[in-house]
């Protein structure tokens, strides 16, 4: 017996799958399963986070429903995965946030945005909030740079701390393979596997979504979202370096590096989440974990909002809309930061850890 009902079901499925093994060429979950004969909670959480939910093993399984063996690996592992996020959350008291994530995110986002708007209005008079500001330092007329930096550093550092503590608990629970260490080769392998979404390919033909015809659409939109996020992050980092090393203040002209990175990233963060949302809403219900759709949609919405407000800010920053848009953008980013450890964002972190463990296991075995 396991900690939860869904882990019991995952155990049952892994027993079925381990006596079949037809899917072993499809992704990493099944070869990882084959290295085990019995499954601890940690093993099952590991396998759940290794699963990319491409759906191939469901479409290819002769025992999937309506067969009496009722083998539905993608859905079972999706539920187990969502439950594992809460199980490893730090601090523990906030693990409940996952369950009501959609609501939590909307409230946090709304409050953050409102706080920034009211904050700007309170810090300045109305004419500043709705005034036209141009040239370097325009943003800081609404909020001093140091205040902005302190606020976001605090939120960001808290998010990092919470994520590190959570993934540490996960990493301990999934166990270390005998003789295995996270060597450079495994880390490189895991970065590649995560970076190219190697296992969201249904064994080569693509991901199964609304029907039994595979496509690469989810992979494309995920790539846009993920790399859009990274580009935006890079834009912020470069901006920070510009500020402290070169003494150049935001906003930057459209052709300058932070703005170029931000523009490209912003496009990804607008198009990617919309695509993922559409794919998700069309996805066959038997592949989905309906109970965590709030968490998924909440995260997608936050990324979209961040991208959208950023893009609008870029376009309209020399107009009177700049003040309110900056407030909205900063509010979205702030909300994104502080909800990161308690929402769908963590899937990337746990999946990377699982891929790293898998790379280690393969190298240890070889």
């Amino acid at each position, binding site marked *: 017996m396991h900690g939860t009902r869904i882990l019991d079901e995952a155990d049952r499925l892994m*027993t*079925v799958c*381990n*006596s*079949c*093994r*037809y*899917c*072993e*060429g*499809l992704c990493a979950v099944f*070869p990882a399963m*084959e290295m085990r*004969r019995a499954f601890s909670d940690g093993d099952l959480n590991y396998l759940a986070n290794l699963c990319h939910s491409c759906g*191939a*093993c469901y*479409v*290819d*399984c*002769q*025992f999937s429903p*309506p*067969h*009496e*063996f009722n083998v539905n690996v993608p859905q079972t592992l999706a539920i187990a995965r969502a439950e594992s996020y809460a199980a490893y959350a730090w601090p523990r008291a906030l693990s409940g946030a996952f369950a009501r994530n959609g609501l939590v995110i909307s409230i946090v986002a709304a409050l953050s945005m409102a706080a920034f708007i009211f904050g700007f209005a309170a810090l300045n008079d109305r004419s500043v909030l709705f005034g036209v500001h141009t040239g370097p330092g325009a943003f800081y007329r609404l909020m001093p740079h140091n205040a902005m930096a302190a606020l976001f550093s605090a939120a960001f550092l808290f998010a990092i701390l919470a994520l590190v503590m959570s993934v540490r608990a996960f990493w301990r629970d999934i166990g270390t393979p005998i003789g295995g260490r996270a060597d450079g080769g495994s880390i490189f392998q895991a970065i590649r596997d995560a970076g190219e979404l190697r296992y969201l390919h249904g*064994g*080569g*033909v693509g991901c199964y979504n609304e029907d*039994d*015809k595979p496509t690469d659409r989810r992979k494309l939109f995920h790539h846009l979202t993920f790399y859009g996020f990274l580009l935006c992050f890079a834009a912020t980092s470069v901006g920070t370096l510009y500020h402290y090393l070169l003494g150049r203040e935001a906003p930057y002209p459209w052709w300058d590096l932070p703005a170029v990175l931000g523009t490209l990233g912003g496009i990804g963060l607008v198009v990617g989440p919309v695509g993922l949302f559409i794919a998700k809403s069309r996805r066959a219900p038997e592949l989905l974990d309906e109970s965590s759709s709030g968490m998924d949609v909440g995260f997608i919405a936050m990324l979209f909002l961040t991208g959208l407000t950023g893009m609008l800010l870029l376009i309209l920053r020399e107009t009177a809309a700049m003040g309110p848009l900056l407030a909205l953008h900063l509010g979205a980013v702030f909300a994104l930061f502080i909800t990161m450890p308690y929402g769908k964002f963590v899937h990337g972190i746990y999946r990377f850890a699982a891929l790293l463990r898998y790379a280690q296991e393969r190298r240890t075995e070889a």
Partner: protein
Amino acid sequence: MGSKYDVLVIGGGNAALCAAIAARRGGASVLVLEGAPKFYRGGNTRHTRNMRCAHDAATEILTGPYTEEEFWEDLLRVTGGQTDEVLARHMIRESKDILNWIVEQGVRWQPSLGGTLSLGRTNSFFLGGGRAMLNALYLTAERLGVDVAYDAEVTDLVIEDGMFLAARLKRPIGGETEIRATSLVAAAGGFEANIEWLKQYWGEAADNFLIRGTPYNRGSILKMLLAKGVQEVGDPTQCHAVAIDARAPKFDGGIITRHDSVVFGIVVNKHAERFYDEGEDIWPKRYAIWGRLVAAQPDQIAYIIFDSTVVTSFMPTLFPPIAGQTVAELAGKLTLDPVALEKTITEFNAAVRPGTFDHTILDDCVTEGVTPPKTHWARKIETPPFLAYPVRPGITFTYLGTRVNKESRMLMADGKPSANMFAAGEIMAGNVLGKGYAAGMGMTIGSVFGRIAGREAAKHARN
């Protein structure tokens, strides 16, 4: 779905789809009638995993050459010579090209990774298994414009003087219809799921058979064809049968109910007596004989008995072994006579001679002075807990079928080829497989003769 096609394919498995695709590529309009609902489409192909094809050199997925001659010798060995040499050699030659052709139809291979099958040289494994293969074939067929109807139960075939005219069918929606076609490809499988029919040859024992595939393989098309003058081939009692877990469902338990622990222990019947040399041969042959051996035992039940030292030596199993701390306790759980089981194990243990155990070769671990002997891999059963799997015959497919020629054209009872009827897959497997089985041959028969049948059926329709 119109009512007149160039080629009508009855059946929905590998052979049927290869025929449909080949016929469509040959320029014919094609309708596939699958008797099962969509989920259960594909008959036994749902449960297959690999295909045996001859090849002259190692490939990306195959570790070495497997020549036509070697394939032929393997076929000769498993069938004990009960095969049509002309057809068999033709099939083996064609299998070389099938290895590539099937990939062109969207089917993907994988290197053989795990499991217990050591078939990396001779057999190609479908990535994702048989259902993945089917999915690929259906996608390709539909993309090419082949029409497919599910839940399409054929109730009658209109055949005049060996000439197919029409098929009558009944569908849950749409009721009764008649489909006319210029050519027919029958690829509707064997009759293994038809217990009543099996009973004609096996008697009441057939009630204890478990059917590894879908309940839709009832042989109704085969029966109609034979009744309308198509020549019969094959021994009706011959089938591909393996020993599967007695706790498996009656139908469609598929691959995961099989056991390959025979070699690590002994097998006893309901009287707790051994009845066959558990160490006779290595995997492929061993796998294929135990179904029939168990079928010949009283009540068609047997028990694989082993001890705790070997539990990790074979594939993990769906159903856990039944365990007892003593032989008597295990016997109690299996409802065997404890005294008899203890006697059997004691005598067996006393007969085991020392040797070097190696389950990958025919090793020198043998028994002496016990009947039947265990001629390889014999080791004492003595470390508790004592464990057992109950097994029953698991029927995969039957060999009674329609006789065909090299064009996959059915032959009529008078020996004349039918004008427009072709057969492929298990419905004609008995032409090649008189008895016995070697892994992956069912798929070879299906793909090779399916492709030929489709091509020839389209050619006939165009003339």
